[in-house]
């Protein structure tokens, strides 16, 4: 067993390499989407008590030339590992891949992950399984992502691709050269708000976070802006006091930012402002009026009305709902659209 940081795993004796179909080992850049990472961490938490590490399949998108890989999704694959042998449930892997393809036809197999940063002979074996011809990622190299989840240490993610290495053909299956490749964590616009919400829980004891309303998130954003302004003005003050190192470029940048404030006539501002606020309030007012009207319309349609004559209910037992309508009109002004609809109802 090798130390955690070595990338080369050879099985002796060394012999002449006889590998003809060489998969490409071009360096590539890997981007990881946070949800794949989250999923790996979740899987790591759910491992069996006696398992050191768990593995799974990475799904994602590969660029045309194969130099960029985006890991978008992943799923866990059960495996057992002992000192002598490793067993990966290949049927499970195939079935899961098929199921995932039905939901996400665009995502292809790109590699596999393990939840320990250790690379050993079994890693090489699994790596070769994932990179093989047929079901594997051939001719592109399989990406191997390790996420260390050892307690008390930083969570560390590393990505590798592999190259076959010169050994005898019999031992080629369990040896390979892991080449570290750079990776970065990236997320899209849509995920930003979700991640921000999730990150909001990171400093809380119970690790939970209720959903914020619009106005609360606005408050948060404003607080953040204020904090940043504070930092900038602190810096500027320090420069003025000759405590911090000045930078003309930064000064210019700040000046430019300040001069972004448009020079417009106050009257124009006032007018535009009023127009817009009126728009907003009008829509809000209308929406609420409509809501009230619809509410009224619903109540009138279902309410058993006994206005004036006491026997209205008795009549309604036989004649369906006609008599109930009769009482409705005296109560309402018939204003707005909902009102009109209702007025028509009582025509009969």
């Amino acid at each position, binding site marked *: 067993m090798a130390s955690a940081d070595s990338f080369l795993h050879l099985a002796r004796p060394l012999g002449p390499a006889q590998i003809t179909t060489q998969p490409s080992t071009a360096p590539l850049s890997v981007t990881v989407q946070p949800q794949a990472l989250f999923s790996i961490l979740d899987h790591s938490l759910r491992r069996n008590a006696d398992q050191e590490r768990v593995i799974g399949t990475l799904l994602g998108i590969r660029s045309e030339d194969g130099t960029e890989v985006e890991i*978008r999704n992943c799923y866990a694959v059960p495996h057992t590992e002992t000192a002598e042998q490793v067993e990966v449930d290949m049927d499970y892997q195939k079935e899961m891949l098929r199921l995932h393809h039905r939901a996400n036809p665009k995502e292809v197999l790109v590699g596999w992950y393990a939840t320990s940063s250790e690379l050993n002979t079994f890693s090489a074996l699994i790596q070769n399984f994932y990179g093989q011809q047929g079901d594997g990622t051939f001719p592109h190299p399989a990406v191997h992502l390790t996420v260390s989840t050892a307690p008390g240490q930083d969570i560390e993610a590393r990505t590798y691709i592999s190259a076959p290495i010169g050994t005898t053909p019999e031992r080629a299956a369990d040896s390979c050269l892991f080449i570290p490749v750079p990776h970065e964590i990236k997320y899209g616009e*849509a*995920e930003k708000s979700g991640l921000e919400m999730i990150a909001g829980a990171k400093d809380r004891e119970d690790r939970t976070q209720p959903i914020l*309303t619009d106005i609360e998130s606005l408050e948060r954003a404003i607080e953040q802006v204020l904090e940043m302004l504070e930092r900038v003005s602190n810096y500027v003050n320090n420069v003025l006091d000759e405590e911090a190192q000045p930078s003309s470029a930064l000064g210019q*940048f700040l000046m430019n930012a300040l001069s972004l404030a448009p020079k417009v006539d*106050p009257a124009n501002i006032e007018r535009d402002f009023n127009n817009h606020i009126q728009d907003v309030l009008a*829509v809000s007012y209308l*929406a609420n009026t409509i809501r009230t009207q619809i509410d009224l319309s619903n109540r009138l349609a*279902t309410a058993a009305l006994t206005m004036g004559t006491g026997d209205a209910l008795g009549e309604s037992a036989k004649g369906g709902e006609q008599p109930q309508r009769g009482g409705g009109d005296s109560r309402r002004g018939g204003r707005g659209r909902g009102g009109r609809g209702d007025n028509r109802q009582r025509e009969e």
Partner: protein
Amino acid sequence: MADALRDTPLRAVQVEALVVMKVIKHSSQSFPTAATGSLVGMDVNGSLQITNSFPFPAVDPSTQDGHQESLHTLAAAAPRAKSNAAYQNEMIKFLREVNVDAQNVGWYTSTSMGNFINTNTIENQFFYQKEPNERTVALVHDVSRSSAGSLNLKAFRLSPAFMAAFKEGKFTTETLQKSGLRYQDILVELPLTIHNSHLLTSLLHQLPSEPSAEPPSFPPTLAALTSDPTPTPAPLCPNFDALELSIDPFLEKTCDLLLESIEAHHTELNNHQYYQRSLAREQTKINAWQAKRKQDNAARVAAKQTPLPEDEWQRLFKLPAEPSRLETLLNSRQVEQYARQVDGFTAGVTGKMFAVRSNLLPGEAP
């Protein structure tokens, strides 16, 4: 014990961060078509913990006739489709092998501008809630509102009163009067919290990588600063989308949707009105027939003949069936949803606008 557990109603929903991310990814990928998927998790003392999710198979556009509308309906109806039920069972069976909570606790759907209260949603949730282990929820993720600032994720269940009514499938005026079901009672919203695992918390704490020990050197010129490629947005940098001042698109869309709802409401009212007119017509005919029969009978009695039966009209005349009020109910609930949405939006946007004004006109700030 089991009964006691069954009787405690669901009070809250706790969603794992992983599920939040999966739902966001799936729904933003398939936008504007609705994305639907299944949720798994477990129920702990009245709080439903949703720990994992998986999407339902995408509807293949090539097999359909490419019609946008039918594609959308198919996608929205996915949760209760037969093939997907099989898919779900298969997936859960596989997930069980890797120690994921193998219990279905509901489904999720994506929507745009809160436009989700329709027959599809109701039927899907009914499909899930009528099952014996009926502790299931519907998670609704609003894509367009989440992109404008804060995450918009809600959990809903059908109220027991609505469940009973829907099971009978009768939504006539009479049954509504009897049950007292109002449109406000169709859906019950459950409070929703997001929960992180310990590992995730630790990851979040170290994602913004530590600043380097020595302060970064200052850029030499302004051009270098503005064209510097390195400051890519670091993970978890603050998000200022909430400060966006674009008002018109939102108002426009909401107005469109509101008009649509009113239109639907109007159609329903017309249907009802038509029903009532024909009912009244039939009723008059019946009355006339009854009066005539009475007269005849009086004549026959006078002539010492046996009177004809008086309840024959039930065979001769057929009263029209009352149209279901379900659509009206759902539509009303939808309007309520829009109105609340506008209220929330107005609250935020007026604040922002006053802030902008006092910024531009400092002298006149109150």
